[in-house]
């Protein structure tokens, strides 16, 4: 093995020799630097690979045969090797990235970089606490030197503050070291660990000073103003270096020294770390400067890591894995983001829209953001999962809650930044200047994130390989993005088919899973068939679609909570990118993402409680949770209800869906929402209805369902845009399903399942065709359409059947849903909720009639005189679904009897009894076939008679109407379509008041207010920052003094 002392030697040697090589040119010096850094990285990498393959064990290397502190003692273990490798690789790529700046500043800057890296390596490797001090000072000075690369005023004063702060901090450290030495007589860290008992007795102040100094290095809230300014002021390559390499090293040493202080230090670390995480993310909310945002985020992430370290006793042997995944993600993503910010140059978040001009970089921007927030397949996802699981399992609920809250805050500003960059107009911005030096590190780290995610997941036994393998397929699709859309469509279809073939044996015989797999994957096939109408390339669409469908597939296939959550998050990412494709979807996409994030965090907490209660992550853990069951189930339900857009959590839906185009709208509404239903079914199935808390939850849930239906349908009646109308209608329909499920009766669940299936069918038709019509007509505003039945008869017919089904008018299958709801209401005596539900059903007529009338009937507008029928590729899936509706209407037992058999084990009471085609419950009966026969016969007879009687009828045109003896002047003025239910609004419009929207608006304003209030802390004045540091030391000491004495 190569002696790690060479790391230091190479660093120092090259740094000094650079001065001699001045004559050979700057370019040469640069490559020498990179090569030296590479060599250093090679050494630690070499050790790392040896450790990984278990060839060696940790060793202590002493140099010069003496004893510390007179000589340098290095400890080389697996973690040391890993951290050293990370730090050095960070330096390699930062150096590479800083090419232009280093060349400009000359070899001295390169020497500083080398010295800094050497110092960081020293911090990690050293076994001697005083040497630690020395190396820390070296790297601090080197960092200051790097900051000096720019003579920008901001950077200068940031560097000055940094130097002052680190001066004080290292003074404290030194003081602590000497006290420690005084009480223990040794400086060797390993020996110190063995003397922990002695330290605790007599070295309280010493360890406190050391711990607090190292903690201050990690910039805890609120004594971190200098740190934020440093991130903001330093050039982005340097910031990347600080955020990845320096922070990693500082954290490592903190981790190493932390046990010295015993429990009290752990507690300080936990409190300081988690509060830093929460507050720095809260602070970041009101900023738009990306460097500052990233600074806060880095500080927050480090705070989280510190907190985790402080909580390590509770997390047990998972601590290292959690820390490594979170730190690794932070390291890769933060470095990447800082590098990107150097490419974008403009520090305003909105200016990142210019990055869209180089799609590859933008894709990595997204990767970094999603990785930071712990989305799969990145390592932090697993870390976050284990973290929350571990904390909740040891009853650290508040800590877990605070961490989730902090993550939420982080999500708010990161997602806002990302989605604004994604959607704002970027015609007026310049293309970012990209060189090989700036792009290579980003690309490398980005890809490495994926690999790290994959690598981490191999350590997670709960995750099966089928959750990962399709990701490769999606990655492939992403690489094939240059192909024309129809080719990608075919490939995607093949992929979905293959997945179905894989999935079938897993779900065979499980009706529940078959239903949802049918909706998710059958829907995928239909959606992809519809996708053939697209022309051009449609970049980015297919990978994201496939990602969403994969997530949905995993959801169905999931055998444990982790897979469920994994699938859920994948689906969220995919669907976000689909929804955001609409033209004006920026705010709606963002609110979708935030609600999803909030929902998934709530779910995570719920899952953790389930896991804590049962000790396993199997789906069976959801059954009868014992620890805080009310909270657990409520959180999970709330999480899933963000997707079903139930009342209170619905405000993202109308906009997000309303702006989507036809087939995406179909996927989002007809398919995606069902994922929430799937989750609710799982949760309710686990919860049961016997416990008192369960009954309370169900009561609330039932009302939520009923009111959602009411508000959704009333909202739909007042929309002018057909798509918004359908989106609101989806909210209402999902309310029915939630209501049915909340009843916890056989009939209620039957109704809910029935609705789930039929809603998929009829809404699918509506979304595809109305979307198609809107596409043809060029607007979704209904009043601009009219009379289209003449141009689009096929669409009209399908839409007609769909709305008859939706309205629940016999003899089509929609009626069975209404019938079941009535019976369920009677059996559970849910009259008040029931009336709300039934009346919502009647209100559905309002918007349904409006939909079909204003679009298809009435007067044909001039500009639509020549529009063509909706694309045949949209008609094909619509008519397939139409066929299914007819089949189910003819043979409703095909669906209901089967579902009933599935439900009987869970709800043995009150099942439907099937006698031939007659279904009967305790209260009533229906025989859809006879109903259909009677209605059909009557209909046919009357129709034939009418046709015969009017066989000579004169076909007339649109203005051949009685217009009070006058002639209509223009179709626009003869079409009643705008504000169709004005009188209704006058009477019940108060129910359409966006109270919920207002609530969320006020909440967000409140948060931002709080955040900008916190700005007062960060005055930008070096002295205030020093005050903060001193005060932090004193206050923390006083707070923890009780524990020490």
């Amino acid at each position: 093995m190569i002696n790690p002392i060479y790391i230091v030697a190479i660093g120092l040697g090259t740094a000094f020799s650079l001065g001699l090589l001045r004559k050979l040119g700057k370019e040469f010096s640069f490559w020498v630097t990179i090569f030296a850094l590479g060599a250093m990285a090679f050494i630690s990498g070499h050790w790392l690979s040896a450790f990984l393959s278990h060839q060696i064990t940790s060793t202590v290397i002493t140099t010069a045969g003496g004893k510390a502190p007179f000589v340098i003692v290095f400890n080389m273990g697996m973690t040391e090797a890993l951290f050293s490798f990370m730090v050095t690789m960070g330096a390699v790529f930062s150096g590479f990235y800083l090419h232009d700046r280093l060349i400009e500043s000359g070899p001295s800057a390169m020497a500083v970089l080398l010295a800094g890296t050497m110092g960081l390596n020293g911090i990690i490797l050293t076994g001697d606490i005083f040497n630690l001090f020395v190396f820390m000072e070296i790297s601090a000075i080197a960092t200051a030197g790097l900051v000096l690369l720019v003579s920008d005023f901001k950077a200068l004063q940031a560097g000055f503050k940094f130097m002052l702060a680190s001066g004080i901090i290292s003074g404290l450290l030194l003081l602590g070291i000497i006290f420690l030495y005084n009480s223990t007589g040794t400086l060797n860290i390993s020996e110190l660990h063995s003397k922990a008992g002695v330290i605790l007795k007599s070295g309280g102040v010493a360890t406190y000073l050391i711990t607090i100094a190292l903690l201050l290095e990690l910039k805890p809230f609120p004594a971190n103003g200098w740190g934020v300014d440093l991130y903001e002021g330093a050039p982005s390559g340097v910031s990347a270096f600080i955020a990845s390499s320096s922070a990693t090293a500082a954290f490592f040493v903190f981790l190493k020294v932390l046990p010295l202080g015993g429990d009290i230090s752990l507690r300080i670390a936990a409190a300081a770390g988690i509060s830093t995480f929460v507050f720095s993310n809260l602070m970041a909310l009101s900023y738009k400067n990306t460097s500052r945002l990233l600074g806060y985020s880095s500080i927050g992430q480090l705070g989280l890591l510190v907190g985790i370290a402080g909580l390590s006793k509770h997390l047990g042997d998972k601590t290292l894995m959690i820390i490594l995944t979170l730190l690794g993600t932070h390291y890769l993503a933060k470095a990447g983001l800082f590098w990107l910010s150097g490419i974008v140059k403009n520090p305003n978040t909105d200016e990142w829209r210019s990055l869209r001009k180089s799609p590859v970089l933008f894709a990595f921007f997204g990767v970094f953001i999603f990785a930071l927030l712990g989305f799969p397949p990145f390592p932090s996802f697993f870390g976050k999962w284990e973290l929350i699981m571990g904390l909740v399992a040891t009853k650290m609920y508040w800590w877990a809650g605070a961490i989730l809250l902090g993550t939420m805050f982080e999500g708010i500003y990161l997602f806002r930044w990302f989605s604004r960059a994604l959607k704002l107009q970027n015609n007026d911005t310049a293309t970012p200047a990209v060189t090989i030096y700036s792009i290579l590190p980003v690309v490398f780290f980005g890809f490495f994130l994926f690999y790290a995610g994959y690598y981490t997941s191999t350590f997670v036994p709960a995750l099966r390989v089928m959750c990962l393998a399709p990701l490769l397929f999606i990655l492939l699709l992403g690489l094939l993005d240059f192909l024309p859309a129809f080719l990608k469509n075919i490939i995607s279809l093949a992929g979905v088919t293959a997945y179905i073939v894989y999935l079938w044996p897993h779900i065979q015989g499980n009706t529940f899973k078959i239903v949802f797999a049918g909706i998710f994957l059958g829907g995928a096939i239909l959606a992809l068939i519809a996708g053939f109408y697209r022309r051009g390339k449609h970049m980015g669409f297919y990978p994201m679609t496939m990602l969403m469908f994969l997530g949905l597939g995993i959801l169905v296939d999931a055998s444990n909570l982790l897979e469920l959550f994994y699938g859920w998050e994948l689906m969220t990412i995919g669907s976000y990118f689909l929804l955001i494709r609409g033209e004006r979807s920026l705010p709606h996409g963002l609110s979708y993402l935030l609600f999803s994030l909030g929902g998934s965090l709530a779910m995570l907490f719920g899952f953790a409680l389930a896991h804590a209660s049962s000790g396993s992550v199997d789906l069976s853990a959801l059954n009868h949770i014992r620890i805080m069951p009310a909270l657990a189930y409520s959180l999970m339900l709330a999480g899933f209800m963000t997707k079903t857009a139930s009342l209170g959590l619905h405000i993202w839906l109308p906009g997000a869906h309303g702006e989507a185009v036809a087939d995406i709208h179909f996927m989002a509404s007809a398919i995606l929402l069902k994922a929430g239903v799937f989750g609710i079914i799982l949760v309710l199935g686990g919860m049961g209805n016997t416990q008192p808390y369960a009954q309370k939850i169900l009561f609330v849930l039932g009302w939520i369902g009923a009111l959602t239906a009411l508000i959704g349908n009333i909202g739909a009646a007042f929309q002018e845009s057909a798509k918004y109308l359908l989106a609101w209608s989806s909210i209402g329909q999902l309310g029915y399903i939630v209501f049915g499920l909340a009843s916890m009766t056989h009939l209620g669940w039957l109704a809910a399942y029935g609705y789930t299936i039929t809603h998929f069918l009829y809404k699918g038709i509506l979304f595809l065709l109305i979307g198609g019509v809107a596409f043809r007509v060029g607007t979704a505003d209904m009043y601009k359409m009219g009379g289209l039945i003449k141009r689009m008869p096929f669409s009209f017919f399908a839409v007609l059947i769909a709305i008859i089904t939706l309205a629940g008018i016999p003899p089509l299958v929609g009626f069975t849903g209404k019938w079941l709801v009535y019976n369920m209401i009677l059996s559970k005596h849910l009259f008040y909720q029931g009336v709300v539900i039934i009346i919502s059903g009647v209100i559905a007529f309002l918007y349904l009639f409006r939909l079909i009338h204003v679009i298809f009937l009435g007067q044909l507008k001039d500009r639509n005189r020549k529009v063509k029928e909706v694309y045949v590729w949209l008609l094909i899936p619509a008519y397939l679904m139409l066929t299914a509706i007819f089949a189910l209407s003819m043979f409703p037992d095909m669906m209901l009897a089967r579902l009933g058999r599935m439900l009987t084990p869970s709800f043995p009471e009150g099942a439907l009894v099937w006698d031939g085609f007659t279904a009967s419950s305790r209260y009533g009966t229906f025989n859809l076939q006879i109903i259909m026969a009677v209605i059909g016969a009557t209909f046919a007879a009357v129709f034939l008679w009418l046709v015969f009687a009017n066989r000579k009828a004169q076909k007339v045109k649109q203005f051949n109407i009685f217009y009070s003896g006058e002639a209509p002047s223009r179709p626009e003025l003869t079409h009643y379509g705008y504000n169709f239910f004005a009188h209704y609004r006058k009477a019940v419009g108060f129910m359409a008041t966006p109270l919920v929207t207002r609530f969320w608006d006020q909440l967000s304003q409140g948060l931002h207010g709080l955040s900008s209030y916190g700005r007062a802390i960060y005055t930008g004045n070096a002295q205030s920052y020093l005050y903060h540091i001193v005060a932090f030391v004193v206050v923390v000491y006083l707070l923890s003094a009780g524990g020490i004495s």
Partner: protein
Amino acid sequence: MNFDPMKIPWSLLGLVIVFTIGMFIRGIVPKITARAGMRIGIRFYQPWIDLIKHFSIQTSITHGVMFYLGPVFRLTGGVSMILFMPLIYGSWYFSNFAFAGDMVLFLYMMFFGTLGMALGAGESGHPYSAIGVSRGLAQVTVAEIPLVLALLSVAAQHNTLSITEIVAAQQGGISHWTMVTNPVATMAGMLALLGSMMNSPFNVVLAPQEIPVGPPTEYHGTFLGIMNTNRSIFPVAKVVFFMNIFFGGATNWGILILKSFIIYMWPVFVGLVFPRFRVDQSIRWFLKVPMLLGILAVALI
């Protein structure tokens, strides 16, 4: 119970009888209202003449397929309601296809015709038709609230949704009628009935003074004839439904005619006394007393 082909002729006979009753009522009621206004009034067979005249119209125009389907939906809705309605309690011949469905079927069949009519009227391209439909739909959404509450109350009271069984439970004298056993629900239901019978004060849908005749503005001849046929069936079906639910049903045709006539006259009398509501006014009205009565009816179960 299973399907028996012999049901078909008997149901059709029942249908014809109901239609006759409907035509009769439609002759008598205007006569009564005329007398209330000190006029002589129409001949009681005038509806028949009008109907024949509609079918005797020689020319017709069509605005498209839905223009045909509107009246077809309308009449199918009305006829189906009768066909699924047990007309005479205890009679196999006139229980029609009641075994195929229950109260819920009936409630939703009511919309079959409404929706079809609305679509047909929409196809005609006449703005007044659309305005009429929008008014009608808005009004029906609230008129349904007390009705549904009342029906739920009755269904919970008798523990069944089946109309036949509800009628059966009311046999044995007037004291067993829902009217007596559940008076609040009956009141709520009867107030709801006002909203769906196209009588003042809830007839702004047709409002001849402002939107000629509402939805059927463009309809004529055979189309109108079919719709008028339905006007003799549909209201009777509704009335018979109310009779079955609240007033003990009928054991023979005489009782049926008597009861349905009395129930039919209720909205007529109200209409003679009260002027017309605007849509928003009628919505607010339904949300007050009728809805409270409905809630009370449910609460008292």
